[in-house]
């Protein structure tokens, strides 16, 4: 009986210590979950910070701190419109690299048509959070309404082509597609293009693509190549029959046109042309006249698919009119690929830069 008692006491003691151990383990485990929850909350907070920098872009305090190092890293020596850095991974990557506090751990290659994906990891707990940031902050909404396609009719009795976009939500890119944006497409897809652009060319328009490649790029972004009638809607000040050929005035004729309004051949010695936000149409579309020629898809008249107004023409050229377009075969950038309808550039140019932009529709 005595032996039984001692065994019983030993068993009870063992169980008590077991329970104590389990309880301690449980408390540790519980504390571990508190730590992991706190880490997750920190990651959520960090993601909102990343989102803020993403939208503020060049206006963010963080960009000011890393700007010089970042431009040096990418060999960018010329000035460019730094608002192009908004919603672009380059700015975040630089901030992540050059500021002591890491914002995120990696940019996922699996970024999709509408967003970029980042992985955030807490250094203490290794808790992870994948976030996606919308990449469409350079597009603008085209107000619903009745619009006109093409140039103003020559006489008041002539037909005027009208259309409306009521109950449709159309968004267009404010600026031309840049080489920086194109690089992502080249890296993500097996295209015949395999040259990654660097340095000062990064924020210049992607201008050596065929029409097919331009359309494929826009598709990669979940968009369509800009359509001529939507372009006209976003650039003509009014849709009436006496619409102005210029995006900034209702006047039919304009004498003193500046290089900031239309960047023509005469402007080349003064300053280099760049994508910028100084020449917006009423709807906010940049560079609708001057700069580089721009390819469009024209569902009404496929032969009028190139905005020829550019620095290849002098200020007096008739090309500097909205709605008046040349024909590009879309296959190459040489002189023989473009039909300028007899209004050719005065200076011989071997290769033309041809830019493009995209648009899309959103369903509510």
């Amino acid at each position: 009986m005595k032996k039984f008692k001692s065994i019983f006491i030993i068993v009870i003691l063992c169980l008590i210590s077991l329970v104590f151990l389990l309880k301690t383990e449980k408390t540790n485990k519980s504390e571990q979950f508190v730590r992991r929850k706190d880490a997750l909350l920190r990651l959520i907070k960090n993601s909102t910070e990343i989102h803020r920098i993403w939208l503020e872009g060049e206006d963010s305090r963080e960009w000011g701190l890393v700007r010089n190092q970042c431009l040096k890293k990418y060999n960018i020596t010329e000035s460019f419109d730094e608002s192009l850095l908004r919603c672009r991974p380059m700015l975040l990557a630089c901030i992540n690299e050059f500021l002591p506090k890491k914002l995120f751990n990696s940019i996922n290659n699996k970024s999709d048509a509408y967003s970029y994906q980042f992985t955030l990891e807490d250094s203490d707990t290794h808790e992870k959070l994948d976030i996606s940031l919308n990449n469409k902050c350079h597009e603008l909404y085209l107000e619903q309404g009745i619009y006109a396609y093409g140039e103003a009719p020559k006489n008041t009795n002539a037909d005027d082509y009208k259309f409306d976009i009521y109950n449709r939500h159309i968004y267009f890119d404010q600026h031309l597609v840049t080489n920086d944006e194109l690089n992502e497409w080249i890296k993500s897809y097996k295209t015949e293009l395999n040259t990654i652009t660097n340095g000062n060319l990064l924020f210049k328009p992607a201008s050596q693509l065929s029409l097919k490649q331009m359309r494929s790029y826009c598709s990669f972004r979940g968009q369509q190549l800009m359509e001529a009638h939507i372009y006209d809607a976003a650039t003509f000040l009014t849709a009436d029959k006496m619409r102005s050929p210029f995006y900034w005035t209702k006047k039919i004729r304009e004498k003193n046109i500046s290089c900031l309004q239309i960047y023509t051949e005469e402007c080349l010695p003064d300053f280099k042309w760049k994508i910028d936000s100084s020449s917006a149409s009423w709807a906010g579309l940049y560079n609708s006249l001057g700069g580089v020629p721009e390819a469009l898809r024209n569902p009404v008249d496929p032969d009028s698919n190139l905005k020829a107004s550019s620095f290849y023409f002098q200020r007096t050229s008739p090309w500097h009119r909205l709605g008046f377009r040349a024909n590009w075969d879309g296959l190459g950038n040489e002189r023989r690929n473009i039909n300028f309808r007899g209004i050719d550039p005065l200076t011989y140019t071997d290769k033309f830069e041809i830019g493009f932009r995209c648009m899309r529709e959103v369903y509510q």
Partner: protein
Amino acid sequence: MNKIYIYIIIFFLAIGCVKKDLNEINYLLLKDWIYAKEVKTFSPLNQILDRPPGGEILIMQLKFVSKIECVYYTVPFKSIPGKLIIFENQLSENCAEVRNNNGLTEVTDVSKFKISFENFKLNLSFNYKKQQYTWDFPFYNIKNGFIHEKFKSKKTLSLLSGLEFINTPKKYIGRLSDRFSLGQALRCHHVNQKCETIGEYRCDECRFGWYEIADFNCPQGGSKFCGQNHCGEKNEPACPRGYKIFENEDTGICQSELIPVYNQEHILVCQ
């Protein structure tokens, strides 16, 4: 005598191990719920739930990409303890008012349970073993539509427009080469002649964008197809010319040498 030992061991082990810790539950719920795409609440908000005493009520339904989670609460009464019960459903099944499944997660001894849901943030407050707890859950993935404003980019009505958390890769449909004229294009939104939507709207899943076609001139627009837009070209749909019909004009845009003709499905096609 051996039996007694076994019972004692089981008893102590049960105390030590079985129940999920409350902090663990809070962490797991936070990790899971931040991906919710939709939250519906069924019980009164901002007040302690005390009715029906002893009864179980559905308080919330959370919808995710591939599942639905149902949250029930048993209102404590006399010997019936308050219980918070959460379980998963298939995406196609909404939560039943009366629970028909065992809980995935259960918290017993809950009382003074209160729920508030405001500005895409959920707050659960309750007493557990006479101690008060408050759990907060932000929902960044819930989208309540879009705001379209001129001169602005698209804004989503959500906690932070443009920010989402991802736990499953997005699935896409459509190929770049799909063409309407070749019968390959996927219809991602089907509108019939009564202007009713047939099936699900799936255009957000189109990998290479989508385009609308002109068919029944419905106020909300026509059917939509995934892929590259070739509207206006031969054997491709006409581009919609507008909802407000222009007198003596076609309702679709085709290239100048083509004319818009309705096909068998009443889609305006350029021929």
